[in-house]
């Protein structure tokens, strides 16, 4: 039996736990934190209590060793309740992944174990004020001085950047070398010269903290370097090839929510003497949402399965992320359309879905970059 679409007993239990958590803990506070533009620490604490925070950390370092497929099952459920809140644990996994991929034994023990012992987060810092998609053009400088690197520069749009216990920072030893000159350094919270400034006024995902990180003569011990000098870029790309899959899962969650809200409203709202769900114009929108959700979920599972099998997954994660975030944006858009004027105000949850899921088309590589990855893959064959 080479193809099996069934979930294991534990995966079903995990899904039930995440679904219940989303409904009872996240859903009631999602709107409040969106309005306040504040990180919901009580939710993060509870995520830690039930074991869903930083759960990809392997068991030998105190974590649960969740596989990618487990992670996407959880991701869809949490994002159903609030994509912004789901970004917090998701971005922590993004910070953890380079340590898993390139860290040595001592580093894994030193950095990962503390994240399993209390509600704590990690972060990943690649983008800068002057470059995002062109990641190899980064300007943050690392200069070796004895047992330290001296770090100078600014990172931009860093999720969890101000809350994280440590941040994986990608810096260049020599800008002329472009991607071959990049080094990955773990910078711990409170290191002198390292500051995080919260970015305010975000359109959506306002419960997740997004930061500008400033490094002024920050001394980073050589023991905090992941891999070798010059391997940083490869570490960053291999990380994103994995962590785009949970972005796809979150998008599926948002799309499912959009469909549920639209379906509920369409059955209640009447026009021309009958529920609007009776009209084909509405039915087609709902059916299109369903088509998007089912296909995006299946493909996200496939990308996760490839990652878990240790098979090449860069193009699959790019397809999953671009496709799922686009069907989710469209689902949120159509959910607003079905709600009419009510969809345009905050009393109903659908306008938030659109604001939140817009970011899924931008972060962890814009969908344009995803298409480049896909095109390179298909032209290389």
């Amino acid at each position: 039996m080479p193809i099996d679409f069934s979930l294991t007993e534990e995966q079903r239990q995990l899904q039930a736990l995440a679904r219940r958590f989303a409904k009872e803990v996240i859903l009631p506070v999602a709107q409040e934190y969106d309005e306040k533009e504040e990180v919901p620490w009580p939710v993060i604490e509870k995520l830690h209590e039930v074991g869903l925070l930083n759960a990809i950390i392997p068991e030998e370092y105190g974590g649960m060793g969740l596989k990618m497929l487990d992670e996407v099952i959880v991701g869809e459920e949490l994002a159903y309740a609030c994509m912004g809140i789901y970004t917090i644990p998701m971005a922590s996994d993004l910070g953890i992944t380079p340590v898993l991929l390139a860290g040595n034994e001592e580093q894994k023990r030193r950095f990962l174990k503390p994240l399993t012992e209390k509600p704590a987060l990690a972060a990943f810092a690649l983008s800068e004020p002057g470059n995002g998609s062109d990641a190899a053009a980064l300007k943050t400088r690392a200069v070796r001085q004895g047992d330290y690197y001296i770090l100078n520069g600014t990172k931009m749009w860093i999720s969890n950047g101000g809350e994280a216990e440590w941040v994986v920072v990608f810096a260049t030893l020599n800008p002329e070398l472009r991607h071959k000159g990049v080094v990955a350094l773990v910078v711990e919270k409170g290191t002198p010269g390292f500051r995080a400034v919260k970015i305010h006024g975000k359109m959506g995902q306002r419960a997740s903290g997004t930061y500008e990180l400033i490094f002024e003569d920050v001394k980073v011990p050589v023991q905090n370097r992941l891999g070798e000098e010059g391997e940083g870029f490869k570490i960053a790309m291999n990380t994103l090839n994995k962590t785009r899959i949970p972005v796809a899962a979150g998008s599926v969650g948002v799309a499912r929510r959009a469909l549920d809200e639209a379906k509920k409203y369409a059955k209640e709202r009447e026009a021309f003497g009958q529920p609007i769900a009776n009209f084909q114009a509405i039915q087609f929108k709902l059916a299109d949402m369903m088509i998007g959700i089912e296909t995006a979920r299946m493909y996200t599972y496939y990308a996760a399965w490839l990652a878990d099998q240790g098979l090449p997954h860069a193009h699959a994660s790019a397809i999953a992320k671009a496709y799922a975030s686009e069907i989710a944006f469209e689902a949120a858009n159509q959910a607003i359309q079905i709600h009419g004027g009510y969809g345009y105000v905050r009393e109903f949850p659908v306008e938030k879905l659109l604001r939140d899921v817009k970011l899924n088309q931008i972060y962890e590589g814009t969908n344009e970059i995803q298409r480049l990855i896909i095109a390179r893959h298909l032209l290389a064959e």
Partner: protein
Amino acid sequence: MKFVAVIRQVPDGESRLRIQGDRVDLSGATLILDQMDEYGVEEALRLKEKHGGEAIVVGFGPERTEEAIRTALAMGMDRGIHVVYEGYADPVTVAEALAPILKEESPTLILTGGQQADWDSQALGGALAEALGVPVVAWTTALELEGETARAKHDLDEGAEWVRVRLPAVFTTQQGLNEPRYPTLPGIMKAKKKEIKKVAFQGASRVEILQESIQEKTRLQKILDGKDPVAAAEELVRLLHEEAKVI
């Protein structure tokens, strides 16, 4: 000490049920550990945490009931016993099926939900007590062990009373007794290594279901036009007080 929670697997309250050929069709429903039984599982765990000993979950039902037993194990129960029976069995039959197993385990006390979300009978607790020849305290909202006996608070229609009862005894549980914990992720991982003993039930239900249907709830369709706001408000209060009896 040994604390037993007897549980069932039932459709989620939000599931949409359908009737197919005079029978409830559960194929599209999400099935969960009965929420009333969850209070029993939580109480067994708390008693174990306070007094030591073992917490055992006992489930009666078809193969799929194992999922609900695993949920209880993921919450922290030590081991499970599953009495396997496909199809419907009435509470008295269920109690008789469980009695020999419970006698063999000889627990300090037994907890089970005050009512069942599927075939709502409110009878299992009482039937279990009868089959075991022990006392029962129904609708418990507080429970304290005091050696050979237990003190328990239980709800009455319009009040509550504290009672003392000799152990072993059966306590039926409900909202207010405790706040059930989540089956955590570490709990889910540990649960897969915990033992579930399977026992086949050879008997048969004493009550046979002939036909099932879903209650149609019709609205009264009373609309107050509100042309005279004062009269409308008075009429609304009267209806809420005298007909709906909610104020």
